[in-house]
């Protein structure tokens, strides 16, 4: 690893606990350091401060890290797989897959689907199915712009179906789904953090085994094949890991746009490399930093206005993506 890369990664790593501290302490209710200490080591659920830390602030912070990192890695994987800097789990419709599966589950009113395992299972299956649909299209649609359009069409189609489902569902399940659909990091409960972390670590763990084939894939599929990379299997593994990471986030936070698209591009601009070890570490850290920052903003605005996290990521992310497109044209 080059020295410059190492320095940038260390800076990001140092920033992480700093931003995490701000994230934990910025809420409307001031908490003492004793509250934080006791919440971990001497917990009593009758103390409001301690309760707040354990049940709300900490799960929300962990979710910001998990969601930011997961979406950024998923975006990086898609961009290298499709050799397209504008690819991402959101734009290619993988999030839509998770969304519609969750919508069907929640709106059906069947209680099994609203349990942790039920929700995550649905989101993963939905993400996986839509991931393979996009992969299938990519084998025929060689033009990268057309593939993006196909992804956007899949997204529109799915949201139309989802709207249709909403009109025929009960008021209660509609409310649950609407709140979920706005995207939020604070719906997660402490009891869910365990399973989320397990899936997250699995996703990251398997991503490290993709570093070598991803480095080769930069040369194109045929060139990778001639270097002994099993391209067919690789495509499937990439889609499965992307679905795992993007599905996980969508299940628990709802749709969060632009992280998967903007952060991998930011990493390429910052690190100026095609070495996927550096890019993977960069995306893990910058994804987390970005979403923590966005959520600090959400919390800072809370006394005045309730802004969904998806709105912030879009307001920051969309202009950045336009900037990337213009920069490529120049």
């Amino acid at each position, binding site marked *: 690893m080059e020295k410059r890369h190492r320095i940038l990664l260390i800076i990001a790593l140092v920033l992480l606990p700093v931003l995490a501290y701000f994230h934990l302490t910025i809420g409307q209710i001031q908490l003492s350091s004793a509250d934080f200490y006791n919440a971990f080591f001497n917990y009593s659920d009758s103390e409001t401060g301690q309760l707040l830390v354990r049940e709300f602030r900490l799960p929300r912070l962990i979710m910001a890290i998990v969601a930011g990192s997961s979406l950024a890695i998923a975006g990086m994987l898609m961009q290298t797989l499709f050799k397209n800097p504008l690819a991402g789990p959101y734009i290619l419709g993988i999030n839509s897959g998770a969304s519609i599966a969750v919508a069907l589950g929640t709106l059906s009113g069947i209680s099994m689907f609203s349990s942790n395992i039920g929700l995550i299972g649905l989101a993963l299956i939905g993400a996986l199915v839509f991931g393979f649909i996009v992969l299938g299209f990519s084998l025929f649609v060689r033009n990268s712009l057309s593939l993006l359009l196909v992804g956007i069409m899949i997204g529109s189609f799915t949201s139309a179906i989802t709207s249709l489902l909403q009109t025929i569902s009960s008021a209660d399940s509609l409310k649950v789904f609407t709140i979920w659909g706005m995207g939020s990091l604070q719906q997660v409960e402490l009891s869910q953090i365990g399973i989320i972390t397990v899936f997250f670590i699995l996703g990251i763990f398997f991503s490290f085994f993709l*570093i070598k084939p991803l480095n080769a894939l930069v040369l194109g599929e*045929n*060139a990778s094949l*001639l*270097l002994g990379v099993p391209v067919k299997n690789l495509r499937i593994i990439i889609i499965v890991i992307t679905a795992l990471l993007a599905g996980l986030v969508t299940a628990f936070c709802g749709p969060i746009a632009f992280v998967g698209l903007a952060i991998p591009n930011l990493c*390429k601009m910052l690190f100026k*490399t095609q*070495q996927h070890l550096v890019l993977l570490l960069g995306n893990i850290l910058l994804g987390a930093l970005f979403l923590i920052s966005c959520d600090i903003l959400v919390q800072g605005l809370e006394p005045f206005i309730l802004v969904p996290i998806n709105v912030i990521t879009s307001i920051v992310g969309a202009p950045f993506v336009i900037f990337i497109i213009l920069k490529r044209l120049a």
Partner: protein
Amino acid sequence: MIEFKNTQIGYQQPLLFIDELNLNSGEIHVLIGANGKGKTTLLKSINGLQALVSGQIEIDHRLTSALNHKDLSNLVAFVSSKFEGIEHLKVYDFIALGRTPYTNLFGRLSSEDHIQIQHAINTLGIDYLSDKLTTEISDGERQLSAIARALAQETPIITLDEPTAFLDYANRVKVLSILKSLATNQHKCIVLSSHDIDICLEMNLPILYIDSSSNHLIKTNTASKSLLLQHCFGM
């Protein structure tokens, strides 16, 4: 090194027939033929990217049909006619990708890998390019880098699809003489397709030409320009 027996090359229909032909280590062969006569398809078949219509190709006494891409990556390297350069990819890192068949699960380069990469760089005389980006060097320099990448792959066979097509005259001569010396000095078996009939004849490179009327591949060491023009292009 490469042995053809009653080989028919093409997609559904055979394009090109090779009755019997051996290409040995230490030899360079220039594939000459009209457009659409199967030069690229032949190179694809050697690289295992295109199945044969019938017959067989043996590489190092093993049938290509029985070799997977992992096996082939230790035997044959391939250079395409144009390497466009890749954003943020340095020449050294690009050449290092030639070591992919040898690196561990995470693609970490060993000291042996670095030695082979540097050896390839020195052979091509492109040490001055190592730290440059593949997008900021000339077409000629990119082609030399691509050949260095193939060399770093340490395969007994290197195949090249019209490696001189996008180069100026000086670079054409340079690339061809480097390839010739790789065959002589490093005992590589080199097969390239080319339309540079004049330069190849001038350099006395052995020629494999595709006869346009019979669609057979014919090996010759004593080709003349008029013979090639007549048999390949019907002129």
